[in-house]
């Protein structure tokens, strides 16, 4: 005491403290202890906060902080042990409720205890790095109650049992579940995870592994997926109702793994109900579900995709190689279009327009369409069918959509140049016979081809249209210029540029004198206006309108081909002609002549000629008469030529040959272009580059490329490197 008095004045206030009651701490603590007891007994109303706060403050101020902290810990532990006894005593379903009630009590008490000890919380605890009062209370609850030997396992079992019962369809007290899991979360995320979440996930895994095993034995794929979806929804709903949001992801992963990932192959490949079946039966809803469920599984989509691809390829291959189907090209292409439509709508509606699925589909179609090398021809025939006059689709818009779809198929074609060949032939026929339904549709098809393959591809086709236009003008010009024609037949001349049109070598037949006169005058007119041109009559391509008066007095206008006209004109002079006579006079090639006689004499209802004998085939000595008994309801009679729409086998070979010939210069041009820029290149690189350049039109065969290179070497465009034989050099 005396020594302290000598200290500086700053310390003076401390003198009073030394005189304080030596039992100060005990007394003060008893006060707090009693108060805490009252608080736990729900009897706090008689307590003075100010007094308790001040007491606690004084204890800390007098350096009793550590002791106070220890006493508090001990005291709370005592209260919690009492609570534990009462929780342990709770029976059956009351257990959770009792736990919950005690937790609420403890929380409330803890709040008030913290209020009293707020000063300690602010000063003593941070400087001494102790756990704050509130957290201390939570820790004590955790260790004394939640993790106590008798409660720990029972709590977990109760929770898991309730969840299991809910999964089995029972209704449980969700709010109690919610508050219990909330308690675990309040105790810290590690408590929630260790004491509830992990065991919960383990139990769920075994539950779903068993359930999925049961389901897969007895359910079809679609039904199974419906159940899996339902379980997933249930679990998500359960988490949102009474678990931590972070559990959502984990439990979903468990269900996905047990119900979907572990059975993925079996589900997708399931007989009679798997993916293939869904595709065949257009089960959009099931497909949508499969797509969305397997999105969650690693490799899920790629598995679906590969199964779908192989199915499409398989059915496609059967479709294009089935000889039955090849008989009707239009129907064949229509089937392809339907198939494409079907899968497009599956991808759009069920596979959420997934780009990778679209690509897979495209490559499958490309694969099987090119399995049949007649596809280019058939597609062109299909277009021909749609663009011909008199088809059902009079509506131009409908034609337009059909054409758009055809372009999809066209894109899959590797031999686009073959298509071009056929398309040219078919277009020529349409244009010359005047059967093109609508100029607009024709032009729109051209524009589509142009955007797809570029200017080069369509330049000749466009040339055909221009030819027809100028021909019209020329014919008009001819009639305007020549006034001395008298009563000669009217002719309409179509001047076709060589090269733009598919021409067959044809020996011109001898025209009837009436026509010959006019046509020679036209030749004179044309060559007079255009210098240095050559005009050849393509008599195999024209048509004529003839007025005919039959023996029975009936008058008709006959629409016939040029060849048929030549034949019919002969009967102006004589009544009966033999085949040989006709052949000699008209000089029509035998095949064509036979065909045109067949159509004149043997088609019922259009038999303007009569043949003797009445057999189907025409032989050299057959006699032909004008059929005096010819009648027809129509004034105008159109006499078609017996023609084959589809190419015959030799024709097909010929077209192929021609296409192969046409490809040679293209390949050579590509090689030269590449070598010109690269100067030196090895064989494989050339093949790759050439293939890349020509791919939009056709797939060049490497063997052909090799032959072309050799030919170019022969013609001294290229040479082999003297040191490295694999390299080619460009010779400028």
């Amino acid at each position, binding site marked *: 005491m005396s020594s302290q008095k000598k200290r500086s004045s700053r310390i003076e206030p401390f003198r009073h403290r030394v005189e304080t009651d030596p039992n100060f701490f005990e007394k003060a603590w008893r006060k707090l202890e009693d108060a805490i007891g009252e608080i736990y007994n729900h009897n706090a109303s008689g307590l003075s*906060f100010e007094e308790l*706060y*001040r007491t606690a*403050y004084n204890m800390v101020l007098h350096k009793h902080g550590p002791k106070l902290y220890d006493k508090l810990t001990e005291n709370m532990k005592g209260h919690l042990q009492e609570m534990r006894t009462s929780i342990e005593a709770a029976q059956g379903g009351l257990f959770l409720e009792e736990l919950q009630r005690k937790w609420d009590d403890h929380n*409330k008490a803890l709040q008030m205890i913290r*209020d009293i000890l*707020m*000063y300690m919380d*602010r000063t003593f605890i941070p400087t001494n790095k102790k756990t704050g009062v509130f957290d201390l209370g939570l820790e004590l609850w955790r260790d004394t109650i939640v993790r106590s030997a008798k409660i720990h396992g029972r709590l977990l079992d109760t929770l898991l049992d309730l969840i299991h019962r809910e999964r089995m369809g029972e209704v449980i007290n969700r709010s109690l579940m919610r508050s219990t899991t909330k308690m675990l979360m309040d105790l810290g995320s590690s408590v929630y995870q260790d004491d509830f979440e992990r065991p919960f996930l383990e139990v769920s895994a075994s539950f779903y592994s068993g359930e999925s095993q049961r389901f897969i034995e007895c359910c079809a794929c679609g039904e199974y997926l419906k159940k899996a979806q339902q379980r997933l929804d249930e679990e998500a709903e359960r988490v949102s109702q009474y678990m931590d949001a972070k559990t959502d992801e984990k439990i979903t992963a468990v269900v996905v793994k047990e119900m979907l990932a572990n059975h993925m192959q079996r589900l997708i490949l399931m007989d009679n109900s798997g993916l293939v079946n869904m595709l065949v039966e257009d089960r959009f809803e099931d497909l949508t579900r499969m797509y969305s469920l397997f999105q969650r599984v690693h490799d899920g989509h790629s598995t679906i995709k590969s199964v779908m691809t192989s199915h499409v390829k398989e059915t496609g291959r059967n479709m294009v190689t089935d000889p039955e189907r090849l008989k009707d090209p239009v129907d064949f292409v229509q089937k392809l279009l339907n198939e494409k439509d079907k899968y497009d709508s599956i991808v759009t509606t069920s596979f959420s327009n997934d780009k990778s699925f679209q690509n897979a589909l495209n490559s499958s179609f490309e694969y099987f369409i090119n399995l049949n090398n007649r596809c280019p021809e058939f597609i062109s025939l299909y277009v021909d069918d749609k663009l011909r006059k008199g088809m059902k689709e009079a509506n131009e818009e409908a034609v337009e959509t059909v054409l758009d779809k055809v372009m999809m198929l066209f894109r899959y074609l590797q031999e686009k140049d073959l298509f071009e060949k056929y398309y040219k032939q078919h277009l020529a026929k349409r244009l010359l016979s005047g059967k093109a339904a609508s100029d607009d549709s024709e032009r729109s098809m051209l524009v589509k081809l142009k955007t797809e393959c570029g200017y080069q591809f369509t330049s000749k086709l466009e040339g055909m249209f221009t030819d027809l236009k100028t021909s019209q003008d020329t014919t008009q010009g001819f009639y305007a210029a020549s006034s001395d024609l008298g009563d000669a037949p009217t002719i309409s001349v179509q001047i076709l540029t060589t090269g733009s049109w598919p021409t067959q070598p044809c020996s011109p037949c001898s025209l009837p004198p009436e026509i010959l006169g006019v046509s020679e005058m036209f030749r004179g007119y044309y060559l007079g206006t255009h210098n240095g041109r050559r005009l050849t009559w393509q008599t195999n391509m024209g048509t004529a309108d003839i007025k005919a008066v039959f023996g029975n007095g009936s008058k008709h206008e006959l629409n016939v081909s040029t060849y048929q006209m030549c034949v019919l004109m002969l009967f102006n002079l004589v009544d009966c002609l033999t085949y040989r006579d006709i052949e000699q006079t008209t000089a029509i090639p035998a095949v064509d002549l036979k065909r045109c006689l067949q159509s004149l004499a043997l088609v019922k209802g259009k038999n303007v000629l009569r043949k003797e004998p009445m057999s189907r085939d025409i032989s050299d000595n057959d006699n032909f008469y004008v059929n005096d008994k010819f009648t027809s309801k129509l004034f105008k009679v159109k006499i078609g030529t017996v023609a084959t729409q589809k190419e015959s086998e030799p024709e097909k070979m010929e077209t192929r040959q021609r296409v192969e010939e046409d490809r040679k210069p293209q390949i050579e041009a590509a090689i030269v272009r590449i070598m010109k820029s690269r100067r030196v290149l090895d064989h494989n690189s050339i093949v790759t580059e050439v293939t890349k350049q020509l791919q939009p039109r056709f797939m060049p065969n490497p063997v052909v490329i090799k032959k072309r290179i050799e030919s170019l070497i022969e013609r001294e465009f290229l040479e082999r490197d003297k040191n490295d034989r694999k390299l080619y050099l460009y010779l400028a």
Partner: protein
Amino acid sequence: MGLGGGRVRFNVGGQVFETTTTTLANAGRDSMLGALLDSSWNLAPTISGGGGGGGGGGVAEYFIDRNPACFAVLLDLLRTGSLHVPPQLPEKLLYREALYYGLLDHVRAARWGAFDGDRLLLAASVPGRAPGDGTAIRAAPDGGCCVAHGGAVHVYNWMLDERRPVSLDHSQVNDVAYLDEGTLLIAARERLGSMMEAWPCSPRFNEYGIGVWDRASGEQADFFYEPPGCALGDADKLQWLDATNALMVATLFPKTDNCFIGLLDFRQKNVVWSWSDAGTAASLDDKRVLHAIAMEDERSVCVINQYDDLGFLDFRSNAGGVRWSSRSKLMNRKVPGEESCYPKLSTHGGQLFSSMNDSISVFSGPECVLTSTLRRSNGGAICDFSIGGDRLFALHNEENVFDVWETPPPPII
């Protein structure tokens, strides 16, 4: 708070105060007053005057056994948000009472305003007791500071009470940094100079290069070896640049004859930008870079020479020289021969601060115009200063005293 009428009456040490629950709500639930009024403690509050809880005139009265004068100040703080301390009331007393009520943070927040270099006033001069010169002063994020003195670090809280000093068994403390309000990082001299800078990671260096320590675990995470031609081993200044993810290292006169400033990229382990005056400085009178600091926009570095000229180096050009902006003529040159300290630089909130002899100059704006000078009549040259927690601390060389500069709260009108 479940009290009728919203009025509250306190009897503090015999003096009655009346206020509203709204005013008291400003104290927050985590204060003594917040707890006092909380419903869990007011199941049956003492009612005076009105009699009966439901009565319209019933006002609760709470007795608090504390100093009424301080309560008046604190209640005023809760009402107005500003702190007015009567001259006769000792500050320490007020702080103690504020701590009792749990309102110390409120007091601190109202005690001084947001930092503005041009409005700084000298708030306190704290004399030190340690012998010899202080080497460094560092501001804490909450307004406290610490002073490195030989082998000890003296720590002060924001009320400028000295806490228990940290001493490191006679080894020389080189530099100090606050990791947060409660954690201090101290670099001591082991063999050669070493120093730290507390940024996302804490680099320090020895004679060979710069090491990186994880600030949470304290383990060494990385080491940057000194590349040839770049003197990293005894750098004066390390500064972490957030935007570029690089560390600025400056090795300066008088530690070396040739100054070197570089930017290190720790991911690629290379020097991405560097500048050196090697070869340009021939005589002692030439301008020599004595301190450097990267500007806050992280596009340039500001340097200072022995004539207190400021210079700037642009990080974006690699070969550029120092753009000096001479301000010697603005300043009153000190009589040569008197002991002086090397100048130091610092930046805060777009302002640049440079210490020079016994004053600190404040430069503002993109052109760095001199806007204020902080000077005190005595105390001698300033050997170090630091800005943090809205305060500026300046450590004087001669008298071992440090000054606290702070911005006064905003004016009433």
